[in-house]
């Protein structure tokens, strides 16, 4: 339905804020890309060029010669895949347990879990660090993801998704001669698919971008993941901003490609099945 023309004041305020918002959100991103294609001198020039005169694609060649980003990249891919496959299984079962079974103290236990969301990651990193140090896990792949397998928030979202499936569907499955495990596998998981996809994507992003933890528990450059590699490289590359930005694009690129491929799924997942439970 078309509405009568409204007073424009509020609309103007909204637009101004959207514009400001676009600026602070999108500009750094744009800046990263064009700086990666400038030469070292013009990158430092003030006022900055908003559009470089020549594009220095050779910056990427220089980057790969300067540091083993290929290796970093593969390390990140391995960690993401291991993390994802193990944690999705663990979290699905945990969420199913909470959603489907009743046991004494269930809600209190769940509240305790949720309470840990309040603790800053930095505080936990130290105790986790001591634990893996005692276990002698430094410079391994598993040390990079095992402490982060069980995320309270994702289990919470999954539990919500499972609980939003009508109880009658479980009864229908019983009538249809379906075991609990089959119900979990054939009915619950497929229905929660939008939420699962959303969580997979968020988990991939977090895992790919994780930095502090790899910094602490990997020493050799052989085991560096890409985000750590990026930061380490930045301290080595010093003032060569274009090279730093090229390295940033190397790190950001896969996530952008993931977004472009999965865009519709992400939006659908979050909008329809995901966040809405």
């Amino acid at each position: 339905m078309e509405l009568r023309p409204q007073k424009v004041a509020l609309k103007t305020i909204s637009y101004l804020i959207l514009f400001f918002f676009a600026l602070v959100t999108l500009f750094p991103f744009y800046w990263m890309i064009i700086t990666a294609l400038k030469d070292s001198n013009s990158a430092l020039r003030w006022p900055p060029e908003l559009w470089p005169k020549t594009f220095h694609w050779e910056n990427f060649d220089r980057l790969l010669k300067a540091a083993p980003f290929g290796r970093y990249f593969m390390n990140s891919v391995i960690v993401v895949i291991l993390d994802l496959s193990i944690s999705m299984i663990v979290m699905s079962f945990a969420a199913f347990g909470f959603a489907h079974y009743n046991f004494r103290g269930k809600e209190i236990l769940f509240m305790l879990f949720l309470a840990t969301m309040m603790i800053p990651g930095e505080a936990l990193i130290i105790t986790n660090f001591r634990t893996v140090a005692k276990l002698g896990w430094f410079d391994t792949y598993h040390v990079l993801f095992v402490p982060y397998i069980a995320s309270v928030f994702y289990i919470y979202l999954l539990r919500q998704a499972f609980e939003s499936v009508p109880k009658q569907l479980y009864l229908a499955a019983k009538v249809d001669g379906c075991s609990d495990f089959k119900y979990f596998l054939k009915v619950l998981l497929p229905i929660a698919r939008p939420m699962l996809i959303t969580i997979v994507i968020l988990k991939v992003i977090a895992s790919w971008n994780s930095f502090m933890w790899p910094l602490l528990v990997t020493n050799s450059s052989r085991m560096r993941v890409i985000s750590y590699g990026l930061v380490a490289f930045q301290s080595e590359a010093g003032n060569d901003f274009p090279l730093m930005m090229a390295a940033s694009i190397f790190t950001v690129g896969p996530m952008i490609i993931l977004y472009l491929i999965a865009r519709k799924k992400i939006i659908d997942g979050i909008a329809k099945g995901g966040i809405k439970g």
Partner: protein
Amino acid sequence: MRIRLEDVTVKFKDRRNPKNEVIAVNHVNLEVPESKLICLLGPSGCGKSTALYAISGLQELTGGKIYFGDRDVTKLDTQERKIGLVFQNYSLYPHMTVSQNIAFPLKNAKWKRKDIEDRIQEVARIVQISELLERKPAQLSGGQQQRVAIARALAKNPEILLLDEPLSNLDAKLRRSTREEIRRIQKTTGITTIFVTHDQEEAMTISDEIVIMEDGRFVQQGLPQEVYEQPANLFVAGFIGSPTMNFFDGRFEDGAVMVGNYRVAAHSGASGAVTVGVRPESVRLKEDGLRVKVEIVELLGRERVCRLRTETGELLTMITDIDTLVEEDTQISVGFSPGKVYLFEAESGEALARI
């Protein structure tokens, strides 16, 4: 397959006060003859769905026994009872197509793929959804989902079909056609069927017999028209029929039943109070009857529904032919058709006589 319930009882713990028990189904007995369609009819919360779930095996009994034919199924799991169940909200698996929904119970029962495919075609033909097999439930209308749910329930060749308010999510027009459809399917397949509803018109039109439930008990069982014409008590009389029966505080006086100053009919009852019931269609214009004021007249094409108020302030409904002239805001006098007046014991509500 015959169904027999013997002294079946289901109790719950009260969620708010776990010490209290709620008796959802209270020592009921029932006999459902082979190949018949029986309605469990009652207001919401009367325990009719719990009774159905008890028959299906999804609900454990607190006491009593259930027989299918001569087999005692009381301790059997749902999947061993050979039943089909249609839920109120259909409970289709939203991520599966129609044919996958129908195939699901068959796959669980480890049917061969070829047999499953044949069976899908067969039940799809019975419920007339052959052209919808590749759709997802979300792409179907309410009535179509309903049919798919029935198809899924029929797929495993159940001996008994249970339906839990299967029409309550449909609009009025669809409800009418779907109920004829269910009647047709039940007659075609000859499966003994129990149908739960709170809608008395639905129960009247679809069932071979009606069982009326109140507060966990079976109050009356009988043919639909029988229940309408010979209600066992005040509750049944008020629940069956639309618009509902009119009730008056009456009394026995001088060998007759009196409502106010209106002498309804001669009847030699015990003296004292009595509840007099009369259906709207049995209220007729009559000189020297009950004096009433016409408050509202609704013209409904073929009939007039008149809301009348007695001099003592009681409201009653009268249905007349469209040609009978009754106008709003006039005074008229009405009587009750002989043989169509029901007497109920004032306290217990038990039916006494029809005069």
